[in-house]
């Protein structure tokens, strides 16, 4: 029906002119360009909104940049916010590679933070952070991993759709954590636990004075490591090969000796664990206690991070920086435009990506054909 022989021939011509690197370049172009176009569209929509508010776009954007990347406090805050978003975005991107839509990063993040706090409260005070970090990492990963893994098991065993189960688990898990905190752990009259006295993580401001006041801390390095690890796992290991095959074509993966149910369970557990690690940022790096509602929607914004980042670990980190910038920048421009401006801008970015990914790819391919 389709003259695919023709494609093959064109592909072979292409491969002769640009050996090997050709395919890589095509993939890079197709994965980066849509996001850039989306940003451009979002910027234009933002301009229009700003003008409607009676302000000058130039002034607002300048203020936004000055309040974020323009000074080290603002930049520190951007990095702090990007840390959590990197974890949730990476978690969602990871699950998407297995063909799973994890809407539960919000509760996985909270569960990770809660597990870390519970462990922290049980530890004797005064231990050095470098000694306790592995314990905290394990606790946070386990907390988030159990929540994510539950959705994975429900899908593998009973065929329950992960979108439904992860959404519902959000309610169940957040309510449970709320109960546990209120009943057993909280400081009276507050929504948070008592302070953790062991293994609080150093902030960047401890090393670089100019970050003073911002919450960015060594969990950022963990986020970078998580991205690198997820990238290696997905693209360079047998398990990653099998996971992506399940995500692309579960039947072909099954044919290739992979049991999709096992992969789904594993992928959801790992995804949940990654989201859970994000809890360390707030609990150990910032406040040193667990507080109800600390996730604050980062688990849901992670969906946008994963999609804008092209479901690639590196892309997730870059997209997290973008959304953190918009979010922090909202505070900076609050004097000129209402705070909902930033929320609208984030939404426009997401919609623009949803539209531009298929559209831009189509245009790139058409362009290539003419070339």
């Amino acid at each position, binding site marked *: 029906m389709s003259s695919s022989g023709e*494609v093959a021939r064109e592909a072979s011509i292409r491969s002769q002119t640009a050996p090997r690197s050709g395919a890589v370049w095509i993939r890079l172009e197709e994965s980066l360009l849509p996001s850039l176009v989306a940003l451009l569209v979002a910027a234009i929509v933002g301009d229009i909104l700003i003008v409607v508010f009676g302000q000058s776009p130039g002034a607002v954007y300048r203020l936004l940049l000055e309040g974020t990347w323009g000074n080290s406090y603002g930049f520190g805050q951007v990095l702090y916010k990007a840390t959590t978003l990197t974890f949730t975005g990476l978690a969602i991107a990871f699950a998407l590679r297995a063909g799973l839509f994890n809407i539960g990063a919000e509760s996985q993040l909270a569960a990770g933070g809660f597990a870390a706090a519970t462990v922290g409260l049980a530890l004797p005070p005064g231990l050095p952070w470098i000694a306790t970090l592995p314990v905290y990492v394990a606790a946070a990963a386990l907390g988030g991993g159990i929540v994510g893994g539950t959705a994975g098991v429900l899908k593998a065993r009973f065929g329950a759709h992960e979108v439904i189960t992860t959404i519902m688990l959000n309610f169940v898990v957040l309510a449970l954590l709320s109960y546990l905190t209120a009943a057993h752990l909280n400081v009276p009259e507050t929504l948070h636990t008592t302070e953790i006295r062991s293994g609080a993580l150093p902030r960047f401001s401890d090393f670089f004075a100019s970050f003073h006041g911002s919450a960015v801390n060594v969990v950022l390095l963990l986020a970078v490591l998580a991205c690198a690890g997820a990238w290696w796992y997905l693209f360079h290991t047998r398990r990653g090969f099998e996971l992506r095959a399940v995500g692309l074509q579960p039947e072909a993966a099954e*044919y290739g000796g992979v049991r999709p149910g096992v992969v789904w369970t594993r992928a959801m557990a790992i995804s949940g664990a990654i989201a859970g690690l994000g809890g360390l940022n707030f609990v150990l790096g910032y406040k040193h206690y667990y507080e109800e509602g600390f996730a604050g929607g980062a688990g849901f914004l992670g969906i946008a991070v994963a999609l804008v980042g092209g479901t690639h670990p590196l892309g997730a980190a870059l997209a997290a920086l973008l959304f953190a910038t918009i979010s922090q920048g909202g505070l900076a421009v609050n004097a000129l435009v209402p705070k909902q401006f930033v929320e609208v801008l984030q939404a426009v970015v997401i919609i623009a990506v949803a539209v531009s990914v298929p559209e831009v790819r189509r245009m790139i391919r058409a362009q290539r054909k003419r070339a």
Partner: protein
Amino acid sequence: MMPTPGAPAIRLTDIHKSFGPVRANRGASLEVMRGEIHALVGENGAGKSTLMRALSGMYAPDSGRMEVADADGILHEVTGWSTAEAIAAGVGMVHQHFMLVSTLTVAENLMLGAELTKDGALRVLDTARAAREVDALSQRTGLRVNALQRVSELSVGEAQRVEILKALYRGARTLILDEPTAVLSPPEVAELWQVLRHMRARGETIVLITHKLDEVMSISDTVTVMRHGRTTARLRTADTTPPEIAREMVGRDVVLATEMRQDAAMAGEGWAVARDGESVAPASDARSLGTSSFPLPALEVRVLAVGNARRTRAVDDVSFSISPGEILGVAGVEGNGQTELIEAIAGFRQVRSGSILLDHRDITHTAVRARGQAGLSHIPEDRHARGLVLDYSIAENLILGQQHRFARGGFLNTLDGDRIADNARRQIAAFDIRPNDPTLPARALSGGNQQKIVVAREMGRDFRVLLAAQPTRGVDVGAIEFIHAQLRGARDAGKAILLVSADLAEILALSDRVAVMYGGRFVVVLPRAQASESVLGPYMTGAEEAA
């Protein structure tokens, strides 16, 4: 004025149509005379379906001119018309994949889009009248259907009749049939030819898309051949020969399967005439048959029962065994349990009862990978869904199912990129996969080259038993030759092969023994020498059951 036969009914000139980078038609032309059966032939991917979909209004061509004659035989330009306009002008198409609503009855399907209603404000559907009209049409055309039956209850052959009726019900005077015989048994094919000849006699025009040359020879008046999106020849059927058409299709000389059938040695004759029920041949029986020259069976299936979504016994107590160096061909109309049989042996589908032995080891309940390690290879029937991960590169697809062998040990299980690339280079060269860039996604390859990836992966390693399901479906003639040669080579090298194909010619060309599957059972198993289309045909429809 009644238009004279022999005047053009359709004229398509220099049609171009691209889908993204795929140039499906690039200068295709077609002229069909009124009252003829016109065969449109070409390899898969030659652009036949695209051209006909343009004619039926589904696609607008990028450029070119389309003309269709009206009832008076006068040509009108209709370039880029809609399906509604095409139907109104009497051009109807029967698609390869049925477009019927399975929960509705035959009559309801026919009137869909032009529903008959009773008078009154509520516009209540007049199903009774629709049923009467369908019955009348059915009588007139000889296409037998039950107007009140739900489409979900129909066999494929019946569903196809409904598709043809649907086109005629809407007033089609020109009927386009896209590969209509792919799902039919030989008697059903004969019946279809009967109906088409009737229609021709009434002055209706038929375009038959096919890649089967025997069909072209037996039914058509004129042949148009397409290759790579272009029209390469227009021949009178009476003045041409299959080799000539094949040459136009491929662009070079080809050996046709029907000419080389006979070289399949009748190796297993004495030993292997097993019928349903008695073919549970335990090793001792095999020896007692005096076939000591034949080794013990490599694959043995004992009273196997397998269910699917609709039937609990889609495979119903099937037993057989295959010796090393033997090809057992399973013929039959699709949907008679072949898919379930293969999937059960491959390990994707739960077995209800019975057992599967590979080299005398019971593998009935082992995992897919364990079967692979035990020596089972599998060319699946649907390479797009199962055989390939289309977005994976050629190199990655060449290790699918073998990924554990390309992983370094240790906790991380890192894949060894060098060995994967090495393997890809070797397989690409050995199986002539084109283009030869291992980093290209499988999606970018032609059907034949995609299938070569599957064949290379499954046959390019050590194996004992091969399941080959529809190994040449949707594959160009050149690749068919190649794959057939591979299968014969493997047989000669002592492999046991279970071949399932909807293409009876392929079964007859390759098999040492032929089984016919009908209603989940092996209704007959014959040595190749005793099998022929006419012998097997009745079994394929269930008209004849083995004693």
